[in-house]
């Protein structure tokens, strides 16, 4: 049971991180398609952005990880 909740938690964090990346890719130098909308999302996600950035920074390579998850890119 614990194992399952843990896995679900990990999965949720991974999904949330991905969603953050879609919204705030500008921070990594990828122009977001709609930066204007991202502006109003910053206050809503204010307490989650910095922890997310920290997690992203601790990964060995954000890009290779993201790309390897896309079909046909890896």
């Amino acid at each position, binding site marked *: 049971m614990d194992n399952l909740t843990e896995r679900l938690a990990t999965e949720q964090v991974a999904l949330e991180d*991905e969603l953050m990346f*879609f919204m705030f890719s500008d921070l990594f130098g990828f122009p977001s398609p709609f930066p204007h909308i991202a502006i109003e999302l910053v206050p809503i996600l204010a307490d989650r952005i*910095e922890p997310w950035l920290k997690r992203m920074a601790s990964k060995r390579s954000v890009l290779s990880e993201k790309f390897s998850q896309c079909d046909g890119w890896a």
Partner: protein
Amino acid sequence: MTDGPEKREVFFLPDVFFVGGKGGVGKSTVAVALGFALSERGRTLVASTDPAHSLSDILSEGIGPSPKKVGENLFCVEIDVEKELDRYVTSAKRQLFSAVSPAVAERLSRFIDILRDSPGTVEYATFEKIVQIVSNPSSYRYVVFDTAPTGHTLRLFVLPDLLQSWLEELVKRRREVLRLEAMRSLGEKSFEELLEKDALHRSLERRLESVKRAVKVFRNREHLHIFFVLNPEKLPFEETRRAIRALSDIGVPVSGVIVNRVIPKDLEGKLPEVLVRESRFWLNRIRSDLGVPVLAEIPLLMGGVRPETIREMAGALGRVIA
């Protein structure tokens, strides 16, 4: 054509005219003249979205960021996108500072500045302002947009669809996250409950709703009219031809072109022959090679932009929209 019956409908949307074209061909003047012609039939707004506004110069009176009455049924506005953006950024920062500690807010507000300076931001803010004007129910029967030069106008028509699919993707992903969270809580929190409380989901949904309204306006072929203004010259001809093709590629039909500064017969003898010949050549190409109807040919009016010339233009355009 009256205001009556439509106003009772839930979705009353105005007839929208986009006037585009290369810089310097007389777009704004034609937009104003078109506005005068339309105002004979109903409340009309002419809105300039070109950062290099010229409505004030054309009408010889100060037009600002809120609609100003310039005729019986005619209003004009020059949209100051940069200023709108500053207001938007300020309000986002204020919310930010009330949400987290000053130190975090300070760091994140620099992030907002980065987003503010992204290339798409101004363009999108323009688009949003247009949507706001158009979807404001029943305030105007006709809205004419005097747009920025060609490339800008093209992007405008691609934006709503792109934005809709981007937002739908975000909403879908947000729901997935919340579904996992509900699952993880082992029945303590329901998915619906989480969904309702989630500020991000709410914000994305609200955006999506307004974009769907925009898509509706932009797809409403019967009430959407796209005119290109050009002169009988090589460069405007080529640029307009490309624009028409690009729009038709994305399924947006151009209603037709308005040729401005056509040399009238009685002037032909008074101008250098080479100029007259050149002008006639390009006029013929416009008539035969653009693949869209020529809606009006406006003669070269001597004496520049004056109330009389605008009235004269309005007369010519009135027949087009009849």
